[in-house]
């Protein structure tokens, strides 16, 4: 029938260029986009905005993500994983603490220096791959919502994430089939969401305590420019830590009072974890709550926890946010009284004690008008809109962020020579000159570090670079210029040149942590099975769109005088085919939908011709095309479009 190909292809282009904002959280993840002038969260097919950052392998070795994966945490803990964000961009040696507190099962065939892999059933996955499963779910949710493919995203990261953690997040996006246009710091994203309706100037502090990470950022708002002045934080501090304290107490109780040691029983620990989280949440609004857990052998652990008890337990964890806040203020050169507004972000800021601490520290009541679970994703959507070219709502908005950690080079004596200081606005660059120490030396090794400590061994090793192929010269003659550039994502780029010969020095990058490009490519190929699934889904989505267009146009056709000119047999046949299209449209079979579209198209060919004739004669009798109401837009394409009129 009347498929307006032009409209559709335009539509398709607009939609495929749509950039979504993603908050890839420790506990929950969300995807959002700008709908007109407002950012909105896209719900999953369960109707819920939050997608729990949980992944599991089901009994058919299929990956399950989000709410439907939660039950596996209890039923088959050895085939599921949560809080994977804690392991992003980290090596075995820096997660020893994590391993004591979280039931992460590392693959037992890990080689030294290899990127971590987590065992799920018989398979093992790197943290970026597991994060990619979550991203893929969000991508799918957005595609279902738009009925169109989504290939570009802005993803948020904790402001205090280092280079390796950022790179791992970017890799996860690539593995999930998303072009990551920008990594935005979570507190900064939150300030964008707040800034949207409060176009004002002043100093804002964003306190972001989530499931696994803590950030504090201080920003200066100036006529739409969001300039981060300083940032600080702890990438391993959040609600998870409070849960772990409560779990330990429950385990101790169970051992002491009931004589049972369930600490090695994955299912029991998962049940306890679920119960303490519920209790923790209840205690934000109640003075007391009951912890109630079913244990093996038909036993039951019950205990009442008062808010006072809870606060006493949580206090040492909450207090760990004070140091970073003080440091951020100091780095910004500001006193608490100079902060105009304080914004709370992250689920853990619902805890009354946290709010009290923030209020005491900044001497003012914090803003809580936006949902602390959603505000980061909403801000990511705003930034996505800015990157897409902006709209009226985001006009003049510009984000100027900083690097949270100093970048340094190891010099003789194992000392760190800082070349880009923390809180430098990004993009930021630094140029260093190197030379050789012996005649004819062809290689120079450079060790790049990130961190604030004086000694290289106390900083985070980012990478070791080998400058190779230096032309043979006497010692000290070559002059090699190495340029370090931190881009707007907070990710480091390095380039080098031997200035006397003008030769681009070859750099061999050995990232200390993280995947090489080849590995990421390999993972994209590995995930081909899922990609194929995505492609099939995309085809189905597009066919459904087309079907909806035809059905809508047919509805219009029924209202037109041309309908009366059809024989009753023709009408009956059309109705029959219409019914079958409506039926297959609800299913996932692309070929069936395609076939039903084509047959209905054939059957309605004469109706289309009659409608055009009547449109022409209407025009001849003095009515304009508009008055003839031939429909408009993609839902009822113009019948004179070229498509089916051969």
């Amino acid at each position, binding site marked *: 029938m009347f498929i307006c190909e032009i409209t559709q292809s335009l539509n398709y282009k607009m939609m495929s260029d749509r950039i979504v904002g993603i908050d890839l959280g420790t506990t929950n993840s969300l995807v959002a986009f700008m709908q007109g002038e407002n950012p909105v969260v896209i719900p999953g097919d369960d109707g819920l905005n939050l997608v729990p950052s949980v992944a599991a392998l089901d009994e058919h070795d299929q990956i399950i993500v989000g709410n439907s994966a939660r039950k596996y945490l209890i039923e088959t803990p050895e085939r599921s994983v949560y809080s994977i964000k804690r392991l992003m961009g980290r090596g075995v040696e820096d997660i020893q603490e994590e391993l004591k507190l979280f039931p992460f099962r590392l693959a037992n065939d890990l080689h030294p220096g290899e990127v971590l892999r987590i065992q799920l059933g018989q398979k093992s996955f790197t943290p970026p791959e597991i994060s990619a499963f979550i991203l893929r779910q969000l991508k799918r949710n957005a595609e279902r919502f738009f009925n169109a493919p989504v290939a570009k995203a802005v993803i948020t990261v904790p402001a205090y994430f280092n280079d390796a953690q950022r790179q791992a997040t970017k890799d996860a996006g690539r593995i999930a089939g998303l072009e990551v*246009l*920008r990594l935005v710091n979570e507190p900064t994203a939150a300030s964008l969401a707040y800034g949207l309706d409060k176009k004002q100037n002043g100093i804002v502090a964003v306190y972001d305590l989530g499931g696994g990470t803590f950030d504090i950022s201080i920003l200066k708002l*100036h*006529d739409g*420019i969001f300039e981060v002045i300083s940032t600080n934080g702890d990438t391993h501090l959040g609600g998870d830590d409070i849960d772990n304290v409560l779990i330990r107490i429950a385990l101790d109780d169970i051992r002491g009072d009931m004589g049972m040691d369930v600490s090695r029983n994955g299912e029991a620990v998962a049940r306890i974890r679920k119960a303490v989280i519920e209790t923790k949440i209840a205690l934000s609004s109640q003075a007391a709550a009951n912890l109630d857990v079913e244990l093996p052998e038909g036993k039951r652990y019950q205990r009442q926890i008062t808010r006072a008890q809870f606060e006493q337990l949580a206090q040492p964890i909450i207090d760990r946010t004070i140091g970073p806040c003080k440091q951020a203020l100091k780095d910004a050169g500001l006193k608490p009284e100079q902060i105009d507004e304080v914004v709370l972000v992250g689920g853990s800021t619902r805890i009354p004690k946290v709010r009290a601490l923030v209020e005491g520290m900044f001497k003012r009541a914090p803003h809580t008008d936006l949902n602390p679970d959603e505000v980061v994703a909403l801000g990511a959507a705003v*930034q996505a809109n*800015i*990157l*897409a*070219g902006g709209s009226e709502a985001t006009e*003049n908005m*510009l*984000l*100027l962020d900083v690097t949270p950690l100093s970048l340094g080079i190891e*010099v*003789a*004596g194992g*000392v760190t*020579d800082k070349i880009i200081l923390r809180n*430098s*606005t*990004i*993009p*930021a*660059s*630094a140029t260093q*000159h*190197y*030379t050789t*120490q012996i005649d004819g030396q062809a290689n120079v090794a450079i060790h790049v570090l990130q961190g604030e400590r004086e000694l290289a061994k106390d900083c985070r090793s980012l990478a070791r670079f080998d400058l190779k192929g230096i032309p043979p010269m006497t010692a*000290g003659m070559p002059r090699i210029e190495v340029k370090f*550039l*931190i*881009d*707007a994502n907070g990710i480091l780029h390095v380039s080098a040149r031997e200035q006397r010969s003008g030769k681009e020095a070859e750099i061999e990058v050995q990232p200390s942590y993280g995947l090489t490009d080849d590995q990421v490519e390999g993972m994209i190929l590995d995930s081909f099975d899922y990609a194929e699934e995505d492609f099939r889904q995309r085809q189905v989505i597009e066919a459904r769109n087309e079907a909806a267009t035809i059905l809508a146009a047919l509805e219009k056709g029924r209202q037109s005088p041309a309908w009366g000119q059809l024989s009753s047999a023709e009408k009956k046949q059309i109705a029959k085919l219409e019914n079958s299209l409506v039926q297959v449209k609800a299913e996932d079979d692309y070929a069936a939908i395609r076939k039903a579209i084509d047959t209905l198209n054939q059957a309605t060919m004469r109706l289309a011709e009659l409608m055009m004739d009547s449109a022409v004669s209407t025009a001849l009798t003095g009515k304009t095309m508009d008055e003839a109401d031939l429909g408009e837009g993609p839902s009822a394409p113009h019948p004179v479009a070229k498509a089916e009129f051969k």
Partner: protein
Amino acid sequence: MVVLNSNEDANACWSCGKMRAAHFCTSCGRVQPPAPADHFSFFGIPRKLNLDVARLERDFYELSRKLHPDLYGSAHAREQEWSLEQTSKLNDAYRTLKDPIGRTQYLLRLEGVELEEQSKTATEKARATGEIKKQVVPPDLLEDVFELNMQLEELRMQKKMGEDDPALMEEIGKQKLSLETKQDALLHELRGYWNDWDSAGDEANRARARDRMVDLLNRRNYIRNLVRDVNEVLEN
């Protein structure tokens, strides 16, 4: 607005061919390839130590709105690259110039002055020879520094043993405060020489100002490092 004043071709926008400002085209607004420029000329301001910081901030915001990579999200890869480089230069220039100490050090270095401790040659020499960069103790501080270092060492030992000496902590805290006051005083003194340097009429006067500033900067850097050491011991 910063306008290039080299030959005519370099003044033409790569995209529309019209005359352009240094970093972006005045006519079509497109970003231009970065040209070598020092921090002052990047902002199109004279090499002077007295600087209107409020105006510098305004210019920084205005240039950010035209150069930032966020505005080139869907531009050609080449323009994205230029935007990234231009913005990193802008940020580096702004960071250096807005800070009175950073600005003074930068300008002196531009004028070929070698600042002892942080001079590039000293850094490179240290790197080549494997020595740690030398620190010159200002003579009049020698006695105080010796005393403070003894106290810091004692506190480090005590902390290692798990002991607590509030009196010593307090004494060191006092010293730190006095060092910070000295730091502020040195900055104030430094500012006093800016006019002498900027006015430049008298070469001898200018040289005198330069030597005084180098001395003040070295003293201040020395004290800054000392304060950092004290903080490290107090916080650990």
